[in-house]
């Protein structure tokens, strides 16, 4: 009986892995460069930085937001139309999931870097490097 239960569950886990019921259950993590080169139209997940000054929020609907995702040298314009996370801003590290259509990436999920890994940089308005003091 035990062996039977184990077999059934292994079968079940493999089944869900191969045929997930929800399209958002799995997404391929690719680089921006790869996405643009291959013009992947399947659902993908991308990581990068929000290009400084690129955030444009629609006048008529605050939920409509366009921005440019930068990963290394590659750039991609992204459209997101849901509530934005609090940590979303210029230069923020984000992960978006969605699909590429006509050169724009339509994201339905936008995550910012997790709060529990808030490792601040010591460089801020109070603190400065000694070398900066010399100049």
């Amino acid at each position, binding site marked *: *009986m*035990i062996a039977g*239960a*184990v077999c059934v*569950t292994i079968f*079940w*886990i493999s089944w*869900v*892995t191969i045929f*997930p*019921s*929800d399209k*958002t*259950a*799995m*997404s*391929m*993590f*690719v680089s921006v460069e790869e996405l643009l080169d291959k013009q992947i139209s399947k659902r993908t*997940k991308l990581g990068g930085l929000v290009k400084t000054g690129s955030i444009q*929020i629609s*006048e008529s*609907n*605050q*939920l409509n937001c366009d921005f440019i995702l930068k990963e290394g040298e590659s750039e991609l314009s992204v459209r997101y139309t*849901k*509530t*934005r996370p*609090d*940590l979303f*801003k*210029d*230069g923020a590290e984000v992960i978006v999931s969605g699909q590429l259509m006509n050169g724009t990436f339509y994201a339905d999920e936008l995550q910012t870097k*997790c*709060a*529990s890994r*808030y*490792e*601040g*940089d*010591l460089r*801020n*308005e*109070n*603190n*400065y*490097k*000694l*070398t900066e*003091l010399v100049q």
Partner: protein
Amino acid sequence: MTPLAGSVALNLALGFSIISIVSLSIYTSNNDERINLLGHRSALASSFLVFLSTFILSYQLMISNFDIDYVARYTSFETPTMYKISALWAGQSGSLLFWLFILSIFSVIVILQNQTKHHKLMPWIVISISVVQIFFLVLTNFITNPFKPTDTDFVIQNGNGLNPLLQNLTMAIHPPTLYLGYVGLTVPFAFAFSALVNKDLGSLWIKSIRRWTLISWLFLSIGIILGGWWAYQELGWGGYWAWDPVENASFMPWLTLTAFLHSIIIQEKSGMLRFWNMILIFITFTLTIFGTFLTRSGVMSSVHSFTESSLGPVFLSFVFFLLIVSFALIYIRKDHLKSAKKIESFASREGGFLLNNVIFVVLCFAVFWGTIFPVVSEAVRGTKITVGAPFFNQINTPIGLILLGLTGVGPLLAWRKTSNEKIKNNFFLPTLISGILFFILMALGYDAYVVISFSLCLFVIIAIYMEFYKGAKSRIVRFNESFFVALYKIISKNRSRYGGYIVHVGIVLMFVGFTGNAFDIEKEFGLKKGSSEFVGDYEFLLTDITEEERPNHYAWISHIRLLDSQGNIVEDLYPEKRVYFHENPDINKRQPHSEIDIHSTMNLDIYSIFSAIDANGTAFLKIMINPLVKWVWIGGYVLVLGTMIALWPRKEL
């Protein structure tokens, strides 16, 4: 000067731990009691040195000594005192020191409690604990030292301060609670290991660790529930569980530990499952280390970032070391682990427990599979495939429901063998009533999982009720007691059994809450002052938007009047949009934060988020209607109550 003392204390602690291991190993071959004493005392000395360095770091955090990198990174002058202390576990090196601190407390308790009681088992118990201690001492001494001085290149006027999201009471106590659970598991692990080395494999070691195991389980459970509660209240996405690797890391050992708590009952009763219990406790302990590895090494963001921090490889090596040593020892002792008896029938309490164990482990494996899948896919195929919450939900829902069903079936089965007649008698009532509910819900057209879940919940509740009723009734008949006196007596005379049933009730209530997820409604929209919008059966009227400046943030407050379908006022909700550090000239340092507001009833939660406001004064809101969420928290309280009853000390006879 003092920071140096903290660092030196950590160095010395490492030295004493090594002395402890070496001398206790020598003792096991020459039996010289003086060496034994040296080993124990060195272990105590090591623990006290860890206490010292933890106090030094806490003190440095309190006095804002920004010459220490850790203090400058996680606190500032403005950080409230309470959060200056909680910053001890906010960052990596501090949390590792904190882990070590708790382990050292436990080590001292174990040594003082058992030195004479378990004289024979103690050397290997202390050795096992010391090995774990050495691992964390190596990390804090050589890899990520909490006393590292600030980069000499920098002039630090003020520290960074603690992330406002973490400045919350729940978030201050959530990590220590989880850690108490995690670290507490070192003790059962050490007892198991020592029992195995000493070939003392009866139920003695199991009896001595029952309490430790249950306390660890309690803290782990509270930690997990608090984490969900915090996410629900603070993170503003309307849910409490996202199957994030960090959450899974705490859930996996909880699953195997729950299995262990059930299977040791069988070993205590009949001496069976010795082999299995050893494997379970070793896996559980390894999973706690693996969990820390998952959350601390950066392996989840990418396999490639894994090697950037030296923490990852060291953790992984320790995980493999633990697995190899534990399983090699189990293999060597396999003949001693054989049980004389075999399970007689699957339709027995033992059979139920065994199946429950298999399913807990399977569930743990499913979570494990989903958690490491991105890493595996990246390593094997070169592309990283991430799996989201729908994947976990799809896999785990049926497995969870089977477990829920077993919670009800278990108590209805007799030990050793259940006669067919007894099966008929015991199962008739719960099956009948929950069967009726099943067909009613089916007829109402609910989703299959919802119908099954609610029917099973009712089945389990009736089964547990029957247990209480039967126990109480026999006392009423025998001692002529009133129902409540009899109920009190059966619980207090058999705390672990009835406490366990109460925990089951808690779990059932939580399942009721989980099932509510199936009915969630969500809507995002913009509103002008005076206009309204409908979501579900409710109307949301924006009556006003006000602004307020507070000590460390600026807030926009939307006033939402919640009306039911008849137009009656239900409640006014005030979700806020805040900007922390709003006076900071650098716009990038200001931090927006959405403070949600919830209208919470037994039936449903109405969850409101104020996402944004535009120049024309239109407020953008996100409303979620989450039925039955409150039952998750109520179930949590019941679970804690049940565990406390099971833990309550018995009067020594």
